[in-house]
């Protein structure tokens, strides 16, 4: 939806109004086994103790699309394109139903995985980065993105210590390797390579996820306190304005 100039003005005015505690979006990214979820939980508890109203959103969790993806994953019926498009739909629905309403209300949103997960996994599956990135337009950039960096060996060791990776997590749809653990090792190496490129391109804050949990948590707190003062990114104006127009035109909110 091409946003009207009135919607763009309203978006900018809302997020740049002086004196308001504006909504903040913080994304936690990284491969499986990098400890994101542990850090996300610690971070949320700390933010709440600091008086923030926190909303969490997880990858592939929209009430509308998640069941569709789940049923197809269970029968291993997804091609890389279908996998990518369905996760893109899930993400879009959460942006419209969860993330933007919370940001508009001045809340702090923690995204346990963001669109970079889609980019890294889809490109590792052989899809074109430009095609995938444009699926996510209009882009919504987080205020801060923490990238939890681990080696493929560490990721593999941590994931396989407690369970066997599932078919798509192990990338068995593209590696054609029967053993899920071996497939995971091959696939996660590709995913991490893509993540590392994305971390550079999109200026993510890299956290050495091989450090202790406590060290990582204190680093995240410090970087958040420094980063939260950043001005609102005008790159987000289109995404907010499109959502505002939808909200004004119709129901659903």
């Amino acid at each position, binding site marked *: *939806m*091409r946003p009207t100039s009135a919607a763009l003005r309203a978006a900018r005015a809302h997020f740049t109004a002086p004196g308001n505690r504006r909504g903040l979006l913080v994304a936690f990214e990284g491969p499986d086994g990098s400890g994101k979820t542990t850090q996300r939980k610690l971070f949320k508890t700390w933010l709440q103790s600091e008086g923030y109203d926190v909303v969490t959103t997880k990858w592939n969790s*929209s*009430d*509308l*699309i998640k*069941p*569709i993806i789940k*049923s197809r994953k269970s029968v291993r019926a997804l*091609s890389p*394109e*279908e996998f990518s*498009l*369905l996760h*893109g*739909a899930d993400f*879009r*629905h959460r942006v*419209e*139903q969860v993330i933007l309403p919370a940001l508009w209300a001045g809340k702090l949103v923690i995204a346990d995985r963001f669109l970079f997960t889609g980019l890294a996994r889809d490109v590792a599956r052989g899809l074109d980065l430009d*095609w995938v990135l*444009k*699926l996510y*337009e209009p882009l919504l950039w987080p205020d801060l993105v923490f990238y939890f960096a681990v080696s493929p060996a560490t990721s593999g060791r941590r994931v396989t210590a407690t369970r066997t990776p599932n078919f798509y997590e192990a990338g068995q749809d593209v590696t054609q390797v029967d053993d899920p653990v071996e497939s995971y090792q091959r696939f996660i190496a590709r995913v991490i390579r893509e993540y590392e490129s994305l971390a550079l391109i999109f200026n993510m804050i890299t956290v050495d996820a091989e450090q202790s949990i406590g060290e990582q948590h204190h680093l995240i707190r410090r970087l958040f306190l420094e980063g939260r003062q950043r001005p609102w990114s005008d790159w987000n104006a289109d995404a907010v304005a499109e959502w505002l*127009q*939808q909200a004004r*035109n*119709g*129901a*659903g*909110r």
Partner: protein
Amino acid sequence: MTTKKARVPKAELIAVDGVDAAAVLADARAALGAPARGGISRWDASGVFQELAVADETAGAPSARTLLLLYAADLAFRLRWQIRPALAEGRTVVAAPYVETAMAFGRAAGLDPKWLTNLFRFAPRARTRRFVHSPRVRRKIKDGFVGFSCDRLAAVRTKQERLRMVDQTAALLRRRDR
């Protein structure tokens, strides 16, 4: 000595687009001719929209962008399981609807044409494109992607808004047919 070459069947992808699903299907059957020649690939072969139809209302109404991402996922399924295998066997496939219906719907919803073009970049070009401009009463446009989507869009609440979406989609398809 001359040898008679085996007749190689001619593979062809025919796209039939329009807002009226029943009229699109009728035209697809006419375009195919003899059923032995090939088959028809229809909307929602993957069942994505069927599942969406039974989703709990509390999940929230989808936007046009979300519906189009789902349309593209369904089309990727149709290409993988119906269209490409049939073409590889030298058969004719009628895709009814194909890309144009979704593009017109997206444009009627105000989405950027560049985004729509990128979305369907994976779909091969049809050798023949047919457009169905149905004279049916607009209110009866209930089935198919356009009817389904207009009934579920977050941004379409009134009958007037629904008619406007159907009309605009139909008008954009007429323009593409020129």
